[in-house]
């Protein structure tokens, strides 16, 4: 991949405060700066209330900064004239699959955005076909949307966003309401899209999902606490636990062993890595 490091998304000194009846509310984002290059798979982790959803809503102009700037491919999200361009470039998928389906038939739902954008019918058809292929929902194209499982609905929601032809897709806890099977399918879909060049921003509190990203940003209290590779982030077991996040059991075990003074790697994220690390530690098998 490695395109030129052009930032698809850029937040500069972003501050956001909710205001209520003219009263100044709580500051949710505190001087946050973040650049996302084109083609990256970024995971944003944090517990409830850390500001991660508020950040997501800034990435396509659903919310506008109180202070600072958000740029989408160089366009300021405050630019009223360009807001539709921005929304078309950055698609959003939310937590609750039931809130995102507008039509009663899968393919009609996926066609909704391109129809509204005035795309010619032949191209709509192509886009819908492509989007349904990408999300593994092609076989259900004529199904009623209400008959789908949560995970399938969420894939239809992703397909609907894809049909708009975005450069980036932002997902705010898309798997929080899904079962493990549905979660795995969504993650596989996102990885495939990313490999095909789509920029992906995944807001989550599941560590195993974040472990699959190129880069992990950990947020706490409206600020960026960590910004690194998944392995480097998950090695910081105590800091993550201190802000109420989970660490994969494998990473926690190795961390605890290190605390006992045992020399073992910190950054084994998968079961396989952990098994290798422990075998290295235990030496050969006695017979």
């Amino acid at each position, binding site marked *: 991949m490695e395109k030129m490091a052009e930032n698809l998304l850029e937040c500069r000194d972003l501050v956001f405060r909710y205001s209520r009846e003219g009263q100044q509310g709580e500051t949710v984002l505190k001087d946050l700066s973040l650049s996302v290059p084109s083609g990256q798979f970024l995971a944003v982790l944090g517990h*409830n209330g850390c500001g991660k959803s508020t950040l997501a809503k800034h990435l396509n102009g659903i919310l506008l900064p109180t202070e600072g700037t958000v740029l989408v491919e160089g366009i300021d999200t405050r630019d009223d004239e360009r807001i539709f361009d921005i929304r078309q470039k950055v698609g959003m998928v939310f937590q609750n699959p039931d809130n995102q389906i507008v039509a009663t038939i899968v393919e009609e739902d996926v066609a909704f955005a391109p129809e509204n954008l005035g795309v010619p019918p032949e191209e709509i058809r192509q886009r819908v076909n492509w989007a349904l292929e990408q999300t593994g929902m092609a076989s259900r194209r004529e199904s009623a949307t209400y008959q789908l499982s949560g*995970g399938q609905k969420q894939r239809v929601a992703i397909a609907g966003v894809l049909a708009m032809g975005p450069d980036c897709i932002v997902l705010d806890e898309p798997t929080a309401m899904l079962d493990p099977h549905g979660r795995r399918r969504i993650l596989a879909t996102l990885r495939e899209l990313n490999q095909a060049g789509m920029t992906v921003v995944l807001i989550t509190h599941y560590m195993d999902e974040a472990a699959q990203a190129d880069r992990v940003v950990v947020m706490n209290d409206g600020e960026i606490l960590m910004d690194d590779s998944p392995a480097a982030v998950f090695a910081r077991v105590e800091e993550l636990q201190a802000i109420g996040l989970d660490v994969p*059991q*494998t990473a926690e075990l190795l961390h*605890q*062993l290190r605390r006992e003074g*045992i020399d073992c790697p910190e950054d084994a994220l998968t079961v*396989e890595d952990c098994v290798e690390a422990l*075998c290295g530690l*235990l030496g050969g098998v006695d017979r």
Partner: protein
Amino acid sequence: MSAPVIETRGLGYVYNPGLPTEKVALRDVNLQIERGEFVGVIGQTGSGKSTLIQQLNGLLRPTSGQVLIDGEDIWQDKEQLRRFRFKVGLCFQYPEYQLFEESVYKDISFGPKNMGLSEGEVDARVRDAARFVGLGEEMLDKSPFELSGGQKRRVAIAGVLAMDPEVLILDEPTAGLDPRGRDMILGQIRAYHAEKGNTVLLVSHSMEDVAKFATKVLVLNDTGVLLYGTVDEVFSRAEEIRAIGLGIPQITQVFRALRQRGYPVSDTVYTVAQAKGEILRLLAERGAAR
């Protein structure tokens, strides 16, 4: 010998029988759950979990077979059904959407009031339930709609606890919560179970949580019971569990892999603490041997 608190005999359930949308949700389910167990209920979406738990307090009527609570068929006399609804408290997924009263206190008291308890008894129940879920006195007069999502969830759970059911069924009580909220609610349910000694059924997708909190595990697959047994019994059958698309705890997978490679480690490791103990034991033995 007392009867199991929950028993199903040949329980079957078909949605929309006779219609083109007919769907068999449960087929010949025979299950006995003993009093006082903390049962983790796992299974893929569509395996019949929700249908089963709705049978257990009579929200759905079996299309075949029986549901017995304390040895009594709950559908034997329709007039008596209400009694079983009080015995078996069911807390749905996303229960916070079901809050409706103008104060937290009133919402929690709805169940016990309907049971016909005296005002004093209702008050005691409400306060006790609020304590279990960690809602302070100052919260009781608030509107449920002023609360955060996690707080609302706890109010809804308190509403079920206040009925002091013999069997408490929770359908994914931690869905959508972050790890901190999840640990808080599961810890409170565990404390409630320990203090009351009643039967708890917890529907969960998290094998780690089930391994940590449950005494028994019920695995449902494709309209029936695949496995029912202790945590050790069930998780030792990893292949069967994986075959139906469910996982076993990550750390359990690590230890099974170590055993396969010939290391003499326990294959009943579910928590990081157990894992650490095993590794330290092994290292010490190896050190002593050298």
